[in-house]
């Protein structure tokens, strides 16, 4: 056991996430730093995709990692560490989002935007997710990011957003429809470009 621990300590960069988590639980901040290095981009990207501006996203991502370190004993290793820390980050962002009362504004925007057309996904799915997410309303973006980026179920997202389950489901559905439509358009554009260059 001690030998295994010494091996992990010596090879932090190649160690498995769970080994690094075990070391972090003993107070090894170096091991936790390696976890930050590995998963920071994912957390920062998720927060930006949820609608946070870059500075806010980075602030919250830092807070999320600090919270993760404080609560590392609660990580049971049942899922990936990256998914766990993303959930923490998503919840922290939601807290700030609610505090800033953006939700009311978002709902207003939703009402103004109304329904959009849907499409069918092509077999070769290529999508610039960040660009596509910009076409969603803040609420749709939030719900889709929570469910597909942070891995929350619809019910968990509803609880986190303090919104009825039905509303979350409809935001997710409309968001998926918009993304799908955008994706089809992007695929068509890419095909057209390939044909014109070919």
């Amino acid at each position, binding site marked *: 056991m001690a030998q295994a621990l010494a091996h992990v300590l010596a090879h932090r960069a190649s160690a498995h996430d769970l080994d690094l988590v075990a070391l972090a639980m003993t107070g090894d901040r170096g091991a936790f*730093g390696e976890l930050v290095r590995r998963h920071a981009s994912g957390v920062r990207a998720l927060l930006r995709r949820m609608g946070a501006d870059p500075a806010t996203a980075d602030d919250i991502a830092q807070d999320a990692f600090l919270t993760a370190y404080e609560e590392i004993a609660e990580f049971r290793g049942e899922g990936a560490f990256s998914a766990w820390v993303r959930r923490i980050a998503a919840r922290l962002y939601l807290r700030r989002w609610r505090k800033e009362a953006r939700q009311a504004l978002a709902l207003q925007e939703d009402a103004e935007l109304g329904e959009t057309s849907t499409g069918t996904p092509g077999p070769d799915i290529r999508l610039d997710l960040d660009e596509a997410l910009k076409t969603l309303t803040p609420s749709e973006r939030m719900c889709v990011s929570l469910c*597909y980026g942070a891995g929350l179920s619809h019910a968990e997202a509803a609880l986190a957003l303090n919104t009825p389950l039905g509303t979350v489901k409809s935001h997710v559905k409309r968001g998926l429809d918009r993304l799908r439509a955008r994706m089809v358009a992007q695929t068509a554009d890419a095909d057209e470009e390939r044909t014109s260059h070919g």
Partner: protein
Amino acid sequence: MVERSFEAELESLFARAPPFADADLFTARVTGRLDRGWAWRRLIIGTLGLAGGLIGGLEMLRAGVFVRFDAFGLAGKLVLEDMSRLPAARGLSELLTSGNTFDGRLLWMSGTMALLAAGLLVTRGLREF
């Protein structure tokens, strides 16, 4: 089926994070905050421990605890001397009074050690939880 593959693709797109040019700087900021947080915590625990120890010591002096301990030690000595007159208890009292160490100072030291041990326990507990 098509819906599932789209959702799976979406999850995989979310899982793919774009590279950040300042990734190393971000990691350094987080670990820096982590180190600073622990340095502060250690400093606060140490300061509180020192202040607690000083206040406790002063309070004990002011309340005349050491004098009382001395008196208690003297009383114990008298009791043991009485006990030593009983044949059955002679062995035990001889053991306790051997080297003439069972006086007030022994009680002081024991009390201080117990206090120190309790302080260490609390400090350790605070660090762990």
